[in-house]
């Protein structure tokens, strides 16, 4: 019975044309990674440094590919069945929740397995170049990849059992993957080598990241170590923590796969205005802007599309944004104060770096989720057809939609301004740097918004649009950092600088003189890239909007 479940899942996944294109693309990418450093003459370095350099790059590339591609499949797996009504049919069969869960998990893991198997020829080529150990290097790298695939597949399935819409499942899963793999590196970077509970927390979080385990294997320990060497057995810790997380999440997911998943009353549309005064008071206190209040009519001056977009969002509603902004503002001010008061000996550049990373992470996480589905969600819900029968012009619709993304992004950008102001007050010489950083971040926000909207407009389904937008943005943000990881070898200064010049994060970090990025001059090349990219994306978005809105 399990076999039937796996077969059905795999058939659904593999029969798509996009999957074929994806597999061909991956094979080509892996081949290129090896071909870059394949020996071109008869001489061989006996140390095997060349193959080790390639393998470093290959390991990170493979991990990044896996994390970019894989989460969308488990994230949509259960919620899609729930929406289509087939989950109820499955639960009515003698399969049982465990078989359904493991059927889905096996299918996702099989897909990850296919990706990993496709990388084997490239890994074999690295091994053939010499200097690599089959067990200590290659097998362990694949161990990290397999464990990471298992953990994120299980987490994706868990998210899927809780989600009510496909795109929210995709958003949440990508957020979780980004948080667990990248954000967990942050505390360790800043608190390593120190003593105290913050350093311990940073250490624990660090072991959750597959990137940390990969760094310890490929010998790129200096990326976030500031020259310090850790003796922690990161591979073992990562494997154990990931397996524990996987087991807990599996049991949790299976416990959700029963009638209770459907046993939800339809919302009766409770309104705070109809509640008692005390309830109203507490809601106002808790939410600041109560999402359950009875909304007023859309003003004549407002773009109805913008208001509609805000009202349709669950996460994007004003009370969430205000909280986010408040957290950012408090954190940035706190960090600046801590440095000034001498609590941390980080220097203004490092504080600036933290603020930039914090803001960039928020932008990378929020922007695709807000703007990828601008068109596809309308097409999916059939709202586009209704909009077409209203007298609103295409440009007003597009502008209204973009405005609904611009306003939250502006709030996020403004959130760290107090921190920057304090920074300039402490170090007036940094005024120009701070101004440039703010321009970099604003340019990134615009670019991320337009890129996500343009990529998303090419898809009919919001989940596919969201996944593709995250993939496109994270590729531009993450892939140049892979080149940066090999900044001394195999890549030279010029190559790294050229690669980083497309990366808005690197540009902001280089301007603020963050250690590791201070040697690269990325401005104004990065601004040119973002400008041209933004205009191109806007043109694609307009063309796509025009295409779908004109009479057939």
């Amino acid at each position: 019975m399990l076999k039937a479940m796996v077969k059905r899942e795999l058939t659904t996944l593999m029969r798509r044309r996009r999957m074929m294109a994806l597999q061909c693309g991956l094979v080509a990418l892996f081949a290129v990674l090896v071909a870059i450093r394949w020996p071109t003459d008869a001489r061989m370095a006996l140390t095997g440094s060349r193959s080790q350099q390639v393998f470093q790059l290959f390991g990170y590339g493979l991990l990044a590919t896996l994390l970019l591609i894989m989460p969308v499949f488990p994230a949509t797996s259960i919620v899609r069945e729930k929406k289509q009504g087939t989950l109820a049919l499955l639960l009515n069969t003698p399969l049982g929740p465990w078989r359904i869960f493991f059927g889905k998990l096996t299918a996702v893991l099989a897909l990850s397995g296919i990706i990993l198997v496709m990388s084997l020829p490239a890994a074999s080529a690295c091994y053939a170049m010499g200097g690599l150990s089959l067990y200590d290097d290659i097998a362990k790298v694949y161990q990290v990849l397999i464990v990471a695939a298992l953990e994120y597949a299980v987490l994706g399935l868990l998210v899927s059992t809780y989600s009510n819409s496909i795109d929210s499942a995709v958003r949440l899963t990508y957020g979780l993957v980004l948080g667990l793999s990248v954000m967990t590196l942050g505390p360790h970077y800043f608190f390593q080598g120190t003593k105290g509970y913050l350093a311990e927390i940073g250490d624990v979080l660090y072991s959750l990241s597959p990137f940390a385990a990969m760094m310890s294997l490929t010998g790129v320990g200096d990326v976030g170590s500031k020259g310090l060497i850790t003796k922690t057995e990161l591979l073992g810790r990562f494997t154990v923590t990931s397996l524990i997380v996987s087991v807990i999440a599996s049991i949790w997911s299976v416990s959700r796969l029963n009638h209770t998943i459907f046993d939800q009353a339809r919302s009766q549309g409770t309104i705070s205005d109809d509640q008692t005064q005390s309830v109203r008071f507490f809601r106002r206190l808790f939410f600041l802007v109560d999402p359950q209040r009875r909304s007023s009519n859309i003003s004549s001056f407002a773009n109805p599309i913008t208001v509609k977009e805000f009202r349709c969002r669950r996460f994007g509603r004003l009370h969430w944004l205000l909280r986010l902004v408040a957290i950012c503002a408090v954190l940035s001010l706190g960090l600046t104060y801590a440095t000034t008061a001498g609590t941390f000996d980080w220097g203004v550049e490092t504080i600036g770096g933290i603020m930039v990373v914090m803001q960039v992470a928020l932008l990378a996480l929020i922007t695709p989720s807000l703007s990828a589905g601008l068109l596809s969600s309308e097409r999916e819900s059939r709202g586009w057809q209704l909009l077409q029968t209203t007298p609103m012009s295409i440009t007003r619709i597009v502008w209204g939609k973009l405005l609904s993304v611009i306003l939250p992004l502006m709030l996020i950008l403004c959130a760290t301004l107090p921190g920057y102001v304090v920074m300039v007050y402490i170090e007036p010489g940094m005024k120009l740097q701070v101004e440039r950083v703010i321009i970099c971040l604003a340019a990134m926000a615009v670019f991320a918004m337009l890129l996500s909207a343009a990529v998303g407009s090419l898809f009919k389904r919001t989940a596919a649009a969201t996944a593709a937008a995250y993939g496109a943005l994270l590729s531009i943000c993450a892939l140049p950092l892979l080149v940066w990881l090999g900044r001394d070898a195999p890549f030279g200064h010029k190559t790294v600088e050229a690669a980083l010049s497309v990366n808005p994060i690197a540009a902001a970090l280089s301007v603020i003189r963050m250690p590791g990025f201070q040697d690269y001059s990325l401005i104004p090349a990065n601004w040119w890239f973002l400008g041209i990219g933004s205009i191109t994306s806007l043109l694609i978005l307009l063309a796509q909007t025009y295409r779908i809105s004109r009479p057939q």
Partner: protein
Amino acid sequence: MTTDQPRKTATDIPVVVLEHLTKQYGSFTALNDLTLTLNAGQILGLIGPNGAGKTTAIKILVGLIRPTSGTAKIDGVDCVSDSARIKRLVGYMPDTFGSYDNMRVREYLDFFGATFGIAPRARAKRIGEVMETTGTEYMKDRFVESLSHGMQQRVGLARTLLHDPKVLILDEPVNGLDPQARIEMRDLLIQLAKRGKTLLVTSHILPELTRICDRVAIMTHGKLRAFGTVEEIGRQVSQQRTIESHLVSADQVSIAANIIRQAIEPGADVVEAPAEAIVRFRTARPESELGEVLAQLIQKGIRVTQFREVQTDLEEAFMSFTRPQQGIVATPVPAGGQTHA
């Protein structure tokens, strides 16, 4: 409201005029030379099997599709070249609801009112009016995605009415509704027609159309097969009328049947139903000759309480047009020889 009692609000002013409307997708013809006219205040039922071209015709009218040739006009405004004005003239309710997440019914209506540029104060008043008309007031704070199908259909209709359009184009408005909701929707549509709205309705539930429509158009394979009142279409299908003669006494049923057999064409179908005291027969004779049959019955002492034509069911008509292999040849000529309501 039935077709026997045409509404007094219907006028002779043509509002929807389609002339030789054709839509081709490559070699496939979705709509083939459709010509019909609908007058103000009338309800037109557009029926046909899946792929008949109903939705294509509707989408051309609301400006979502461009025709390959022919013209479509609503209130004198060309649907292709002046789509901006058409949007204000027409209220379109597609067969899918077009829901938005996390949006309450009132917010939903407020949004669509705003897209039509209705000022906030007037919009609030108008929302109240359409909610009252469609009976959706009690669900104003509910989230649209949490509504049942019947509720969503009502909210969809409320949305369609927001900008007070002259013509309502409703694609399958009663599809998926329970009998109670269907009756309510039917009454609502009749009420709207009484208020002077012109309605174009598609439906698969034919008895519903029989009850509410002034005119019915049957389409198959992109062509208009019949157009007219339900009675006209029924007559065109059978070419023969079914007449029932209700008698006072069951004893006279056989005698009456014999008289009828002699009076009408030889071999015609005459059925005796003594339990009901009815003689039922089918004839191709015109109305003037049928008077003769009644006169003979009375002359020969048969006590007749009713002598009437039994209407051909719309469902029967629909089946005969959509299944020509069953012996009744579908004709491209509309009922009554014209396509004007």
